[in-house]
């Protein structure tokens, strides 16, 4: 089956689903207070308008800072951990424990320390993105082909040259994979803080819409964030694809 027919089938299925949903809501089988019809959700988009967009912008800005932090620190930490065998062996259980620790349990403490607002959101988002990137990069550095390293050393490469010419090019795919993974985690972390202790941002918007029983607006806002995060991930995937061709 051709690609176009697959896309057609996908679009048709979504439309049918929305149609059924609309019919069920119109027929009064579900309480519109909790499950609004798609038409009501669509009508809510312009009403949310600026508030939701400002919230989304705020969330994305925090996510961007958290993401930059987690990528820089994760790659740097991964390079250090991956290069020094003794460090890796000693620290491994700590890294695994911190990585595996459900971050939600420390969230109240972070909020106690840093208060409500932007800083805890950025920190919490960065923690979410940092560990997967750290672990992936450390593994990739460790697994860089030993022969390449020995040959470079034998030909008199300085440590700096070794990293710039051998190690870094070798770990590019892993860094990209980590960046693809990290963005969703960062966004997740930021949204959770905004829901738990937010005064701005999309998480806060979603929460207050739910508390105000504004179901159409809530569904519209949820759709907006979901679309934004899918767009970001697909964008990173496309970038990944292009960079891997370049390699």
């Amino acid at each position, binding site marked *: 089956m051709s690609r176009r027919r697959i896309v057609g089938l996908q679009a048709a*299925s979504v439309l049918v689903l929305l149609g059924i949903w609309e019919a069920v809501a119109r027929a009064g089988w579900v309480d519109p207070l909790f499950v609004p019809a798609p038409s009501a959700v669509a009508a809510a988009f312009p009403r949310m308008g600026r508030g939701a967009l400002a919230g989304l912008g705020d969330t994305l800005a925090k996510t961007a800072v958290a993401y930059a932090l987690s990528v820089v620190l994760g790659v740097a930490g991964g390079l250090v951990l991956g290069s020094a065998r003794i460090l890796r062996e000693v620290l491994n259980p700590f890294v695994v424990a911190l990585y595996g620790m459900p971050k939600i349990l420390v969230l109240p403490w972070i909020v106690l*320390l840093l208060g409500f607002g932007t800083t805890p959101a950025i920190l919490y988002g960065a923690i979410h993105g940092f560990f997967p990137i750290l672990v992936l990069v450390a593994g990739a550095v460790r697994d860089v082909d030993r022969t390449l390293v020995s040959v470079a050393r034998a030909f008199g490469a300085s440590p700096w040259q070794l990293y710039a010419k051998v190690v870094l090019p070798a770990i590019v795919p892993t860094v990209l994979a980590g960046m693809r993974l990290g963005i969703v985690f960062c966004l997740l972390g930021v949204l959770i803080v905004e829901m*738990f202790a937010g005064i701005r941002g999309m998480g806060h918007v*979603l929460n207050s819409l*739910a508390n105000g029983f504004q179901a159409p607006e809530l569904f519209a806002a949820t759709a907006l964030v979901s679309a934004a995060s899918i767009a970001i991930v697909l964008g990173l995937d496309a970038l990944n694809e292009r960079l891997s061709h370049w390699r």
Partner: protein
Amino acid sequence: MRVVALRALILVAALLAWELGARAANPLLYVPPSAAVPALVRLLTLDSYPELPASLLLTLREIAIAYALAIAVGVGVGAALGLNRLVGRAYGPIVAALYAVPAVVWYPSLMLFFGLDAASKIAFGFLLGFFPITLAVLAGIRQVNPHMIAVARAFGARPPTVFAKVMLPGMLFTLVGGLRTGLALTVIGVIVGEILGAKAGMGTLINHAYGLFRTADYVALVGVTLVLIVGSDAVASLIERRARRWTE
């Protein structure tokens, strides 16, 4: 040997730094270990939170129901996506795209729909567990050798037999990994749900201690919850290892 000693040294140094730093800065905010241990004792003797057993039980029940639902629906959807080529090509990408959305955005809608009681936590835990299980079933089915299925069919095996005798052993490895990830995410989902808004359960106790600035009790509650989480993952990893040995 030296590695183990170094690890122990780091652990002791960290605890010591925590103790001294917390005492010097703000014991209430940073909860030194010397304050956390008595709080843990008070918690376990049901002195500080008498409702601890009931809360643990509720959280465990929410996890169990959410996980059972996630397995049932995840295996069903994964099988539908994997067994039918057209369904897989049309709807697989949609499931994968939805997986890219940070799941917590659904939680306010679930809370609105299911209320503050257990149902919304079960729904959220289910949602988090559903995706890895579905995708593992899908990946597992795709890695089964199609020739084996064709041969089994040619020898007259009926679909249930093909599934049980050919597909299941072939995909068990992937499936069990997905089930383990699914359990971990279900547990997280239930606890995130409880912390973001609930009337009972471990998350509610944690929130209560945090809200009243009972930081030592908060640390103790986090410790108990952590045991629950690590324990569930240990059981899952035991089962995973069993299953792997069985396939080898």
